[in-house]
Each structure stands twice: as C-alpha cells, then as structure tokens.
C-alpha cells in the first residue's frame, strides 16, 4: 500500500516534467499541410506552393517550348558559322550551346514585408536546370539575387606569381545570358469583422533578351483566410 502511495507522486512528477519538455524534430519542409503559417506574413509553405505551381506551368508551356526549339536551331546555325569563320569552339560549348543561358533578374517586392525572393527564383532555376531545358549564369543577376564573384576573381589570378600561367582563365570567355526571369509580388489584405484575408499575387515573366520579348508569363494568387478569436487582440 505504502509503495503504491509513493508511486503516485512519482508518476505525477514524471508527467509534469514530460509536459514541460520542449520537443524539436525534423518535419518534411515540402509538406504544406502541416506547416505552421504566419497569419499576416508570407510563410515557408507559400513559397513551396508558388514554386510548385509556377514550375508545373513552366515545364508544360508550349510557347516556351517553341522558343527553346527556335533557340536550338539558331544556336546550331551560329556554331557552324563561327566554326566556318575559324573560331575555335570548345567541346563544352558544343555540348551546352543548344540551351539558352538563364539569368535571375529582379523580383519586385510590392509588399510592406521583407521578402527574400531567392526562395522562389532559385527553386525555379533548379527546376528548369534539372529538367535539362536551360543553362544558368551566376556571373550576372538582378537586384536581390546572388552573384558568384569567383568568375571575375579567377581572371585576376593570372597576375599571381603562384598561379601556373596555362591554367589562368582568359578574359572574353564568359557567356552572355539569353533569358531572364523577372517578376513582381503584390500583397492584398481584406478584413470584415473578425474575418481576415491575405493574398499574394505573383507575376513572373521569362524574357528573350535578344529581342526583349516575353516567352513565358505566369500569374498566380495565393490566398489565405483566418478568423480572429473573439477574445484575442
């Protein structure tokens, strides 16, 4: 009997301690169904949703595919012309020249939030690159996007006495981009009593930089609603 009496407070203490413990565990970052969403701000799951929708639209776009086919024909003709003119075409260029070079341009943030648009642009770039449709450049990028300064720095190494001259990169070998991905994000909010609504509209375009014409455009509005609790403020 006494033993049982001793067990009771011990069990209660154990229950208390376990309820106080904080648990941090990994979850599937692409699972938008369980993701915690900010009521009034963009959330991680919003980026997952827009990336998936825009990626699907891009990969199935017949007009973008027309552009890619035309680019391939033009690139093939340009390579033959350059070779005929005596220009030395590297094997790497022959392998990759049939795909346009993509540059991540500026995503205009028309919201009052601090938004890192790289969460969208770099994911879309990854989808496009892994689909085998485009190459991408890290030499040039729009405002807010990442640039890899190493390409420019590598050309300055030729002045370094420790560098083997033959391995130093030459000037005039970096490729100019053909395509740019740009866009704008617009936020709208609405409130009626305790009902709140928030939406983000994403307008994305791919532009053929040789002509300035758009080859793909996409608009998507992501809308979320929540009802404020009667006692919350």
């Amino acid at each position, binding site marked *: 009997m006494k033993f049982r009496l001793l067990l009771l407070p011990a069990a209660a203490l154990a229950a208390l301690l376990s309820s106080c413990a904080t648990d941090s565990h990994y979850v599937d970052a692409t699972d938008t169904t369980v993701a915690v969403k900010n009521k009034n701000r963009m959330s991680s799951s919003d980026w997952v949703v827009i990336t998936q929708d825009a990626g699907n639209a891009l990969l199935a*776009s017949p007009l973008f595919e027309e552009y890619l086919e035309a680019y391939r024909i033009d690139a093939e003709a340009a390579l033959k012309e350059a070779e005929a003119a005596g220009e030395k075409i590297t094997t790497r260029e022959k392998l990759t020249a049939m795909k346009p070079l993509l540059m991540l341009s500026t995503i205009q943030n028309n919201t009052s939030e601090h938004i890192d648009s790289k969460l969208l642009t770099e994911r879309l770039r990854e989808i496009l690159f892994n689909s085998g449709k485009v190459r991408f450049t890290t030499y040039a990028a729009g405002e807010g996007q990442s640039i890899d300064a190493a390409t420019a720095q590598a050309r300055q190494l030729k002045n370094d006495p420790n560098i083997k001259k033959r391995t130093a990169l030459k000037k005039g070998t970096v490729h100019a981009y053909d395509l740019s991905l740009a866009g704008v994000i617009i936020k709208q909010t609405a409130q009626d009593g305790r009902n709140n609504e928030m939406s983000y509209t994403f307008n994305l375009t791919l532009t053929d930089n040789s002509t300035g014409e758009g080859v793909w455009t996409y608009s998507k509005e992501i809308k979320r609603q929540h009802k404020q609790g009667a006692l919350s403020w």
Partner: protein
Amino acid sequence: MNRKLLLAPAAGLLLCCFGCQDTVNTVENEPQEPVSNIRDVRVVTDKFLRDRLIIRSVRMATAASGNQVAEVAATNARTGVFSQAWSGITGENPYTVAYKFVWMDEAGMAVETNLSAWRTVQIKPGETVFFKSVAPNARCRDFLLNLKESD
C-alpha cells in the same frame, strides 16, 4: 393527433437539411474516348476516403516539351441529406484532401524535386477536381499520387 404533432418537427428538420445542402451540379459533354487513357493500380488503406472521393479518371499525356503530364479527376461523393448533415457536424464541408505527386525515372526510382510537395485542396460536395502534375524531366515515365484526408 399526437402522431401528426411529431411528424411536423421531423418534416421541418428534413426541410432544413435540404435547405442547408451546398452541393455542386456539373454538366459535361459525353466523353468520346474512354475516360482513363492508362491502366492504374490503386492501394487503398483508407476506405472512407475511397468512398468519399471517387476517382473518375487517370490520364497521361506528353506535353510539347516531351515531359509527361498526369491528371487524376476525382469527385466529392459526399452528397445527400445525411452525408451533408454529417459533414456539417464533423466540420468536413467542404472536404479537405491532401495530395502529393511523385515521379519515377526510367529505372523506377523516385525523382525528388521542388515539384513534389504535399498540398491541400478543398472540394465541395459533388465537385470534381483535377489533380495535375508535370514530370520534372523528359526521362520520367511513371507517377504515383498519394491521397489522404486532411486534418
């Protein structure tokens, strides 16, 4: 007399239930081809979901890009007075379903990309939705659609 008195509120309740119905009617042209254009294999672990969300067709096509496109049409079959009333009580109207596409390469291995994510969709009673996905590259030939009731 007593029986009539009992019937009156029952009829009123029934009318109320009918009035509360919020279902979707659909009209479509009669399909000229078989609804599904591929054979599919289904593994059912949730029979409630199977009966509530009827899979109408499973189709695959090749996009201009050469990538496969998969589309699964499904209808929320939770119509009728009792289903509607029960859905209303359990807070399942509209019906929320989560789904995720996974694409497989020519070796049958899953290709993980940013295009593969769990998403939710709300489906009104009687409404037909189309789950659609584009393969991440032209080498993907097969797909798998995961479906579950969302909390």
